[in-house]
């Protein structure tokens, strides 16, 4: 028991170190290469360590490239990855469904309705234009979808049965899909389909400091809250009746967690599109390595999700010269083989 505790503590520290190194490497790579020590210098100076009398020898250009241009994107990628992974882990435990992911409650479909309307029709939304209009429209669409799904799924005694939620999510998602497909087909813009597809597969290319900070705050709040409820989530291991008899207020917890994961996801989708794969697969990867207990599973999922998305985004902006590859394509291409390897390795257990 105590040995397992020490092992998971080491795992967390290690994962955190890997994330820090990954971010430093990603910050250094681009049209201008900057060495990892110089990247560290920029970041440490910006974090206020210069006041301790240290000199990092950072040039103004390096500072601008690392802190102003690349940091929002790298930090945004890490936060989106972390938040998607913890939301996926929470939803998989809450529904006891291996296929649950952050877009379970029709979030991505609803967001797509909003985003595609702006992308294709080029309308402004609530006074915003361009990518800000897309973000706001996507968030509004996600909220409408969430309310529809909750209204469809809620039972006569105010409970939220997971099976009904999944089906309601599918129904709302189908309607949303029909709308976006129709809009793309009817559009007379020749690149409408390509732009919509690019949005749907996700990207953090548009991240600036304010959006990166917003996503980071959302990811941190979500992760801290979910980790605080780790014991409640553990109690679902043997199902709903067992969770109740262990003292969990199941109905209240479901409302709380379904709503919060949906809000977090809606904000992520608004800024980064519907990045697939991370929220579905990362929790499974982490579970197969450290087991299903949430006090370890949730923080480690966040860190692994962050690392995966930092590297995926690095791939997205560097693999093909002069063109962005959608994030969802890279996450699937990188993550799926590793997941396949884990599936084979754990053949005996299932």
């Amino acid at each position: 028991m105590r040995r397992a505790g020490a092992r998971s503590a080491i795992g967390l520290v290690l994962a955190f170190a890997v994330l820090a190194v990954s971010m430093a490497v990603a910050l250094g790579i681009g049209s201008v290469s900057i060495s990892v020590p110089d990247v560290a210098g920029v970041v440490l100076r910006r974090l206020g360590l210069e006041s301790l009398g240290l000199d990092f020898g950072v040039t103004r250009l390096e500072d601008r490239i690392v802190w102003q241009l690349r940091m929002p994107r790298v930090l945004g990628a890490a936060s989106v990855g972390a938040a998607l992974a913890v939301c996926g882990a929470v939803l998989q435990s809450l529904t006891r469904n291996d296929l649950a992911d952050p877009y379970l409650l029709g979030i991505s479909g609803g967001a797509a309705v909003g985003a595609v309307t702006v992308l294709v029709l080029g309308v402004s939304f609530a006074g915003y234009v361009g990518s800000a209009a897309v973000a706001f429209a996507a968030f509004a669409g996600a909220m409408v979808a969430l309310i529809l799904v909750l209204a469809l799924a809620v039972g006569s005694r105010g409970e939220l049965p997971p099976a009904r939620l999944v089906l309601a999510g599918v129904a709302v998602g189908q309607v949303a899909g029909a709308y976006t497909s129709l809009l793309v087909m009817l559009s007379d813009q020749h690149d409408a389909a390509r732009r919509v597809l690019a949005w749907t597969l996700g990207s953090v290319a548009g991240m600036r400091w304010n959006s990166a900070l917003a996503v980071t705050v959302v990811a941190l709040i979500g992760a801290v809250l979910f980790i605080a409820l780790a014991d409640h989530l553990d109690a679902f291991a043997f199902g709903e009746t067992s969770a109740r008899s262990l003292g969990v207020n199941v109905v209240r917890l479901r409302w709380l967690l379904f709503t919060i994961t949906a809000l977090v996801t809606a904000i992520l989708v608004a800024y980064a599109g519907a990045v697939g794969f991370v929220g579905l697969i990362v929790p499974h990867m982490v579970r197969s390595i450290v087991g299903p207990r949430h006090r370890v599973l949730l923080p480690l999922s966040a860190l692994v999700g962050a690392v995966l998305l930092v590297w995926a985004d690095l791939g997205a902006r560097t693999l093909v010269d002069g063109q962005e590859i959608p994030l969802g394509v890279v996450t699937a291409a990188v993550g799926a083989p590793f997941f396949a390897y884990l599936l084979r390795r754990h053949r005996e257990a299932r």
Partner: protein
Amino acid sequence: MSLAETDLPRTGLTVTGLRWSVRDRRILEVPSLTLRPGRVTGLLGPNGSGKTTLLHLVSGVRRPDSGSVRWGEVDLLAMRTRERARLMALVEQHSGTALELTVRQVVELGRVPHRLRAGLPERDVDGPAAVDRAIAATRIEPLVQRPWRQLSGGERQRVHLARALAQEPQLLLLDEPTNHLDLRHQLDFLTRVRDSGITTVAALHDLELAAAYCDDLVVLDEGRVVAAGPVGEVLTDRLVADVYGVLATVAPHPHHPRLHVRVDGVLDTERCSR
């Protein structure tokens, strides 16, 4: 388990005016029922007679339409869910998981109600010791590092009992805990329950097991209590015939100071096909 014995309320478990219905169909109606503290009470009755429902209503897993459930002076239905879970534990008929938990981790789930507090984790100082005691009491020490999913049905139920004991309850509710177990594991499970000394309500199907391990019996039929009291008074040929539609002879056991049930055949075929 000395704690459970010293704190025993004198009046035990009192159920008053308890009703539960689904879409206007009455599933259970118990005007009044008292279970004595410190005893093992068997809950008997055919399939669908309301045994599980009664256990779920008492444990707070379901909320009744009306009525009250008291443990001594404590109103169980007015309690917070997590406080109720510190007072009583439930073992289900068979509950499984797809997760890769070790046996010890399953037993540790019993400490969850002691760690929950306003949504934030609380330090559970007695936790590891309570888990060790529960593991020792159910004699599952050799299993603790094993993956739960690799255990046999009998071992799994024993682990569930250990989890329930780790909750340190004053009241133990068992829902047909020995179904699907072989004979040896059935006897073994109920022996562990008796040895725990905790006030227990156990839904059982096997009349012979009920006669052997229970002090008192409560018999349900179609959602109503048709008999309640000490085993010797409740368990009769007449009752078995009335409730189960089975011809049986209840007589003193030839070798033990308890009753023995000999089943002679089906009494009323109409009842079964109904």
